[in-house]
């Protein structure tokens, strides 16, 4: 009698665990035919659109609810530096690049929970209006746990990680047509970790 109940129940529990576990893994690592990876940055041209597919749609709901589709905004995400090491909140990174052709763009830091990082400067991002470029037309910001000269983007410190989002709104048509070849900022670890 016990066996008749226990066996189907065990099958159900194992199936639920397998289904939920594999679902969560696939949501966090969505396959997409339109994924772009440029250095440490990645995006999908299907974000926000009807072609997103169930995995990407669920991923965006979890990591960036109400993202706009590519015709309006392109979101590049980075959770590693240029050599593929995870971004650590206790470490410092030089993020350097050139402005992109768009109505506006910004670089924002988020904690592991995907919310803005508390910091004494109340600085959460830099955008095209406040990220000055040098004579060579390039910019550099320092993502670090403690105050830095120049453009300091706080990472919060501590044992966890952080991630960066590069937002490009109303990208110029030629940029949108050649997204795969766009020059995005490099992310280079500098100094020692706090």
């Amino acid at each position, binding site marked *: 009698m016990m066996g008749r109940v226990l066996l189907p129940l065990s099958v159900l529990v194992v*199936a*639920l665990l397998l289904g939920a576990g594999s679902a969560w893994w696939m949501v966090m690592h969505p396959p997409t035919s339109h994924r772009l990876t440029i250095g440490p940055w990645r995006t999908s041209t299907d974000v926000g659109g009807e072609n997103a597919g*169930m995995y990407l749609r669920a991923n965006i709901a979890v990591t960036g609810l109400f993202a*706009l*589709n590519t015709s309006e905004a392109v979101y590049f995400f980075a959770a590693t530096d240029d050599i593929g090491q995870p971004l650590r909140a206790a470490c410092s990174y030089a993020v350097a690049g050139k402005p992109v052709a768009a109505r506006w763009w910004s670089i924002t830091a988020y904690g592991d929970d995907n919310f803005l990082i508390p910091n004494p400067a109340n600085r959460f*991002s830099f955008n095209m209006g406040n990220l000055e470029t040098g004579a060579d037309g390039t910019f550099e910001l320092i993502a670090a746990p403690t105050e830095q000269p120049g453009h300091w983007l706080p990472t919060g410190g501590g044992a966890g990680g952080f991630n960066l989002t590069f937002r490009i709104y109303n990208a110029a048509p030629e940029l949108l047509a050649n997204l795969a070849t766009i020059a995005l900022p490099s992310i280079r670890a500098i100094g020692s970790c706090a």
Partner: protein
Amino acid sequence: MSRWIKLALVTLALAAAFHVAIVEAVPFAITTIFMRRIGARLGTNRVLASPLPTDKSRAVVKPSPDLLYAACIYDLSSGPVRIAIRPPASYWSLSLFARNTDNFFKLSAEDAKDGRAEMILGQAKDAGRAKSEYPNARFVAAPGASGVMLARLLVLDPAHMEAEVAAQNSVQCVPATKGG
């Protein structure tokens, strides 16, 4: 086929069914939680304007700290909804999301006319009436009876954001009544 192989196949088939059901449910569940939170504070077809996001903002993951947001839970069960803005000079958009998070429409700078941008959101059957009663507004057929409208307004300098705040406060999301 042995009993154990059958059992393994049944388990895998069930696991696959759970997998698809969970993945499909995630966007709806998260959107529904957001809609209930906003709806409980404000109801439907009303605009909730928020200050610039900070580390204390927890309504939506990955908010942009450079954008003023205004949200509205649209409910078309009693008829179309009129959504409008008096746009600022800087970047802005009014975007419409279905319950599955698809961004099915947006209004932005190129849609503004005479210092105003306006759309009527309804069901396909409402198109004729909406076009005759609101000739200057864009009609948008929603894929479902409810969802989210999100206004985004760029603030490049938080020390001088009066125009953007005024534009944020001008966002309307109200039941479309003739002449209203």
